[in-house]
């Protein structure tokens, strides 16, 4: 499987980054192809919300930065692993910044999916989504439940589904097994 890991850790923190590195090594030893994108070292601007990616240059954002590489990497993958520490009960703003700039991969037209309005696919196939979180001091079960709920929804919007939610307190082996079972 081709796997892209979006590292949404906003600050140098060797624990989190090492966890991803070790996870990537283990997955590679099981014949997966893994790319880690360290978002904090990439040039990513905030979405400006004017839908240029749908109505001016269909399929491509009008902002020129590293997001075009990320979009290409994303759409060519079988699994996109969104990863971040939980900050104020939600994944980092850094991860969200990249996440919302993926909409050029969708089409503006609407579709009725699971009896809700969503967007039409632009591509034939989208990667499945996994979520890996690091709890902060006050993160509780409810926080994880809310984040999971939001990601289950966002997966429908990205024309895919959320396969799993894992924590960095889980063994790396466990996360890799979860990915292997997809």
């Amino acid at each position, binding site marked *: 499987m081709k796997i892209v890991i979006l590292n949404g850790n906003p600050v140098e923190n060797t624990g989190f980054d090492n966890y991803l590195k070790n996870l990537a090594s283990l997955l590679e030893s099981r014949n997966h192809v893994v790319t880690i994108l360290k978002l904090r070292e990439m040039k990513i601007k*905030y*979405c*400006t*919300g*004017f*839908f240029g990616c*749908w*109505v*001016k*240059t*269909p*399929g*491509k954002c009008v902002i020129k930065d590293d997001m075009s590489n990320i*979009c*290409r990497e994303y*759409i*060519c993958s079988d699994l996109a692993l969104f990863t971040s520490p939980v*900050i*104020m*009960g*939600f994944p*980092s*703003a*850094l991860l*969200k*910044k990249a*996440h*919302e700039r993926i*909409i050029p*991969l969708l*089409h*503006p*037209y*609407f579709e*009725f999916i699971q*009896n*809700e*309005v*969503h967007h039409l696919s*632009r*591509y034939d196939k989208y990667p499945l989504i996994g979520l890996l979180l690091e709890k902060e001091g*006050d993160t509780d079960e*409810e*926080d994880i439940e*809310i*984040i999971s*709920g*939001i*990601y289950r*929804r*966002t997966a429908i*919007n*990205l024309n895919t589904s959320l396969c799993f939610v894992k924590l960095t307190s889980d063994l790396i082996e466990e996360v890799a097994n979860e990915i292997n079972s997809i």
Partner: protein
Amino acid sequence: MRLTVFNGSPRGTKSNTDILINSFLDGFMRSDGNTYELAYLKRIKESNNFIKLFQATEQVLLAFPLYLDGPPAIVKTFIELLEPLCGRADNPGVGFIVQSGFPEANHSRWLERYLKKLASRLNCEYKGTVIKGGVEGIQALPALASRKLLRSFYKLGKTFGETGEFDQQIVRKLAQPERLTKFQFWRFNLLGKFYWNTMLRKNKAFGKRFDKPYS
């Protein structure tokens, strides 16, 4: 009553959020002695001021568009700035407005849970979350239909200015429909297609609308 409004739209002054906020504020200012400050979260360079504005008021209203089922990244950046204020005893009350492109309130319900939890994390009195779907088209809407919507936000602001609370009856009405029927979708889709096609044509991009630049 002192109110600070944060506009969390990446479109700033050119946003649908701004239109709704302005009607809300018109209503809010009907009560004698009420004052407000309005800050745009897209102006990230002013973020030091955001914290001051948050602390120097009795009520905060955070209004923003739904972005992939959550807050836009600029709003999340703002929320992260508030971390040092968690649990303080003197924090203001906080209410939210979440408006979205899709017409059903259903899309915003998980986010509503997040916002409620956020208020308790900050130790702010939670004033509730106003959810309004189908807002992307408002600038293209017939005057009558948009007037009705703006009237609701005016009334919402007026009651808030008098009581410091959202009028729950208006909140319930704004959140209609919770979900769509097949027929309602068919109608929404027709209008939606017209909306996007008009913009695509204006930008001479209609023929390219199905492009797949990354395949």
